[in-house]
């Protein structure tokens, strides 16, 4: 959870995760270069390295982009989401090797500054077939650099979550730029159709998974359509619909609200985790705290505040229980406001 600044907060899960990342990277690069050097002796080492790291980074980017939608659909895959930022940084480092070798090979040791050369050597910006594809790759690399550089929670806290999230949504811009970089670059040469098929497959997977996840989320955002009483409380659900230590999620005035049932009590707070907007309502009460399923951030159900020394807070909501039904007032309390949970033996109060 949040802290002023600390380099990676290692734990056993992260170490295993990172070990798997390393194995995957070595596997990909090892196979590519091993076969490349063995079966293509005429290929220069720089060419094979550029292709190994470029394709490897792109494959990894596809995996990264699939984790979000897949874990929405299959919560058992949430462990892949937990340390996803390490995947992102790894992918950037691989892309950096590709970019650095490319710039060194194609743009350095000439009469122009290598970075300037990336943008001006080929000036045919008005042509599709001759478009300077390397400019697109460079811009994508810069986006990935900014994302990698701000991947730590320190930046999340200091940039504020909305800005940080907007920044990291630029991954989709980077992905699009890289697709066009490949299509206007490597695909303009005599490459095997296997590459076209792989790219098409990858793009289709990313698009389809996002569309499915998007529709799934959209239906959840539909306003909970139910009775409103004279005090403005909205009828949400029956107590029996909320498993012990879990939540029922409702949408009130456009915002999702998580209604938790725990230890004979009912409490409601915002569904949106202050860390990275994770769905608190899909989490659980653990040791008396609402625990986010994405990264384990915790909040007290009675006031929406994180336990000390952490400072995150979410809004709470007024709740009442009448004849086994839970009613919630749509107007949120300010984040961290104490709202006494309703004891079920006190229902009808």
């Amino acid at each position, binding site marked *: 959870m949040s802290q002023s600044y600390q380099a990676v907060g290692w734990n056993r899960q992260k170490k295993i995760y990172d070990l798997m990342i390393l194995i*995957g990277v070595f596997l*990909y690069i090892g196979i590519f270069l091993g076969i490349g050097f063995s079966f*293509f002796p005429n290929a220069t080492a720089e*060419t094979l390295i550029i292709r190994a790291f470029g394709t490897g980074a792109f494959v990894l980017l596809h995996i990264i982009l699939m984790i979000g939608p897949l874990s929405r659909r299959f919560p058992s895959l*949430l462990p892949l989401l937990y340390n996803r930022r390490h995947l992102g940084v790894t992918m950037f480092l691989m892309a950096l090797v590709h970019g650095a070798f490319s710039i060194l090979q*194609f743009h350095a040791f000439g009469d122009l500054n290598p970075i300037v*050369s990336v943008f001006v050597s080929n000036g045919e910006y008005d042509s599709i077939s001759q478009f300077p594809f390397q400019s697109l790759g460079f811009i994508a690399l810069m986006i990935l650099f900014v994302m990698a550089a701000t991947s730590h929670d320190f930046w999340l806290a200091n940039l504020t979550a909305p800005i940080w999230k907007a920044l990291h949504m630029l991954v989709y811009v980077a992905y699009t730029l890289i697709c066009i970089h490949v299509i206007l670059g490597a695909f303009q040469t005599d490459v095997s159709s296997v590459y076209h098929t792989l790219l098409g497959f990858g793009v289709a997977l990313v698009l389809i998974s996002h569309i499915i996840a998007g529709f799934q989320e959209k239906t959840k955002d539909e306003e909970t359509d139910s009775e409103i009483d004279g005090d403005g409380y909205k009828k949400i659900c029956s107590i029996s619909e909320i498993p012990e230590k879990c939540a029922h999620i409702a949408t009130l005035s456009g915002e999702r609200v998580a209604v938790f049932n725990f230890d004979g009590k009912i409490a409601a707070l915002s569904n949106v985790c202050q860390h990275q907007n994770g769905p608190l309502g899909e989490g*659980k009460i653990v040791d008396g705290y609402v625990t986010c399923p994405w990264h384990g951030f915790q909040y007290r159900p009675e006031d929406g505040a994180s336990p000390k020394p952490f400072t995150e807070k979410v809004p709470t909501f007024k709740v009442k229980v009448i004849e086994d039904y839970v009613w919630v007032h749509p107007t949120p309390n300010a984040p961290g406001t104490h709202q006494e949970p309703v004891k079920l033996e006190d229902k009808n109060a």
Partner: protein
Amino acid sequence: MKEKEFYIGYLPKAPKGIRKIIKWVTVLLLILVGATSFLMISSEKDFDNSTFEFGEYNSFEGIIMENPYPRILIERPGETGVHPKYSQYYLAQFGKFGGQKMVERLDGKSVNLQGSLIYRDDQTMIEIKDNSISHDHTSDTDRIPEFNSILPQENLGTHTLKGEIVDSKCFYGVMNPGNLKVHKACAINCIRGGIPPVFVVKDGNGNVGYYLLQDKNGNAVNDRVLDKVAEPVKIKGEVIKQGDLLILKADPASYTEL
């Protein structure tokens, strides 16, 4: 009712059921990663045979021909029969530069130099090692030779050829591949730096022709062909055979994109 498993990343272990699923998913992902890598590299088309003897230096003795693109003419030993008496090797310096500055004021002079060979088919270039050129001013050969006498010229007529303009240094061996779109920016940088632009023509039967580009007056065309580099191009011009070298003379403004 069995409590649903819940994953918390900072705890030492994931719940048993989730652990099992993730284990299999990880194995599957690693297999996919390995398989994708194998598929990617095994789908590569073969690379052409070209060589750059990077870091290996040989000594050469010959006559410098400065214009329009620096070359060294090296006498072939013994009887050459129908072949020209002299081989022609293009000259370049380190990086994306031709050898112009290194052979300034040495036109027609007999020199010794060291350099690394770059070669492809019957085309050869030498990347000159810094400070390796030596010229004996007292030598009897310190005069401008009559290049026409040592490099016989033959006019092969006017031809229309289709091919690609490449920079000879990369294409002959420094990079592989050293042509087409992915190499375009580098080729532009090299040709702008003085590397001789060569027109590569393939006839579809595996035969490749290499034509050194000059304008109608036999001058270098580097800056005038940059917008056509690495694109399919048609050039109509006079083909001259100079020694073993084929030269295509045409106004760069007349080149047409295909």
